[in-house]
């Protein structure tokens, strides 16, 4: 147990520089805007007085390290500054937006795992048709752009069949059934490509494990095939699958930006896109910071989970 604890601590400590680099990068975004970012934000007709006022409001005249110190201190207290257009505090805005993005990405990932792992196992152990069908789905899922698939789903389920609303959102706490109706198409859209990746990884990992001597031993011993495949082989094949789930979560967060815009979901992704078009830099920064932090936290959790599923990983980290 001791070396596992050391593995966890080591991984936690290694996350600190990653968070630091990410926060500096996102902090610098507004400072890297060519020319004067305040003039870009206010438009070319801004009066010099207005420019001076906004510069002071954003503390752009302080030394760079002091700006970073103040910004990061605020962020750590949940104070992300205020929306440049609506003057609303960004902390509250983000508190409304984050649950939507989390709901979308987590449900998509759960659906992709629940559908992808069994299909991947079937692709590894099943007959020719199971293999062909899953391979076909993988090629389809990887090649079709997610937002186009989303639009086609809208055309089918909202346009032709009118079973589901085409876009919009109701919070889960207001109306759970309505919430699920609104989130279903976005989740299907986002989950399709993920499912394909998970099928592909599961199949590859299972094929690797099924060729190992202990499987031959279990067969010779007369263990039921079901128990060999789902009990012994899948457990040994789980670590690479968990790794891919973690990596793909980053892709999902990126995809969420597009899918939220497509389905008019009030999540962080849509917030960022709208803010970029309005040159609303404080909102862009806050949104990017939140998504990047989610990504880093999920990577950390994945690594820890993989370390526990497969003790060889945590042992390697020790040496």
């Amino acid at each position: 147990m001791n070396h596992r604890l050391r593995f966890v601590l080591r991984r936690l400590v290694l996350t600190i520089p990653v968070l630091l680099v990410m926060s500096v990068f996102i902090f610098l975004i507004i400072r890297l805007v060519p020319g004067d970012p305040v003039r870009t934000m206010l438009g070319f007709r801004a009066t010099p007085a207005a420019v001076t006022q906004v510069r002071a409001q954003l503390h752009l005249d302080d030394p760079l390290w002091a700006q970073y110190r103040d910004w990061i201190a605020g962020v750590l207290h949940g104070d992300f500054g205020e929306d440049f257009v609506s003057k609303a505090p960004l902390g509250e805005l983000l508190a409304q937006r984050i649950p939507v993005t989390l709901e979308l990405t987590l449900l998509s990932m759960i659906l992709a795992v629940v559908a992808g792992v069994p299909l991947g196992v079937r692709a590894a152990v099943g007959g020719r048709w199971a293999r062909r069908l899953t391979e076909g789905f993988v090629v389809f899922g990887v090649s079709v752009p997610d937002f186009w698939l989303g639009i086609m789903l809208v055309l089918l389920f909202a346009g032709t069949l009118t079973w589901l609303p085409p876009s919009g959102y109701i919070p889960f706490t207001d109306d759970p059934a309505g919430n699920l109706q609104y989130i279903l198409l976005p989740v299907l859209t986002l989950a399709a490509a993920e499912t394909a990746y998970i099928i592909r990884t599961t199949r590859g990992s299972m094929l690797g494990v099924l060729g190992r001597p202990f499987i031959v031993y279990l067969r010779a011993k007369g263990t039921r095939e079901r128990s060999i495949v789902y009990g012994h082989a899948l457990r040994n094949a789980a670590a690479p699958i968990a790794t891919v789930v973690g990596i793909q979560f980053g892709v999902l967060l990126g995809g969420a930006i597009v899918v939220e815009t497509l389905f008019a979901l009030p999540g962080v992704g849509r917030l960022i896109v709208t803010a970029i078009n309005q040159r609303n830099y404080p909102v862009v920064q806050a949104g990017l910071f939140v998504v990047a932090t989610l990504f880093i936290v999920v990577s950390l959790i994945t690594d820890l989970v993989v370390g526990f599923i497969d003790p060889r990983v945590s042992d390697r980290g020790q040496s």
Partner: protein
Amino acid sequence: MTTTMTVTSGVRRARSAVGALPRSARAGAAILVVLAAVAVLAPLIAPHDPNAIDSARILAAPDLGHPFGSDALGRDVFSRTVFAFRTSLSIVFAAVAVASLVALPLGTLAGYFGGWVDQIISRPLDMLLVLPALLLAISLIAIVGPGSLVAALAIALIYLPILARVQRASALVVSQSGFVEGGRARGWSPLAVIRRHVVPNALGPLLVQAAILAGFAVQIEAALSFLGLGTQPPTPSLGLMLSDGRDVLTQAPWVEIFPGLAIAVVVLAFNLLGDGLRRHLDPQGVVS
């Protein structure tokens, strides 16, 4: 003498590799050749001016003269798709070429020398992986502002660390082979060993990864343009066409369906080619 032998064996290997490629990979390559020809010859292939507005043909259904129908401004969707291929493929080609050309020397040096050279090259590149890919692209666009060139640069920036990593791993494996040791023992300078032995033998995985990434670059470019952050109207781009088609989805689904299928075909072709190449050019399994 040695140089000639390396080159001939390289050519022979490349030729036999093409011949031995699975049928799916050759199909992928064939589709890409056709699509590249369409992109280059766009003005000759497109039956109409892609930006010509025709008030008589607003949202007109597909017919013989306009096989993909017309959009909300009466523009010919087929001609626009042909020209959009040109825009998308140019951006993707530029992005992947720039990323590969920068990743090649960086990855090779990091893999061959290791130690502090590796640290100086690899650590800054790792920082680019701190953000999810699309987010990195969007951050760059947030700084510089939207546009085709920025989209190409953003995609190159996403791919640089991935390609450099692959090239580093590949160069590392090759650097431990006997023939590299032989070159060193003969007293060649490190640069000569790298040029004659390491680069030619370590190039395969980079090419495979570049082919696979090119397919996804088409999707990223389309996603950025769809969000209004990439190619700007009126230039025809696959992502912009999807964004236009969305507004008239129920009245005229063809405005949406054909550009989407076009993207799927390009990505599919790159995937088929990349997967086929992987088996032949990446025996160590360096490519993720």
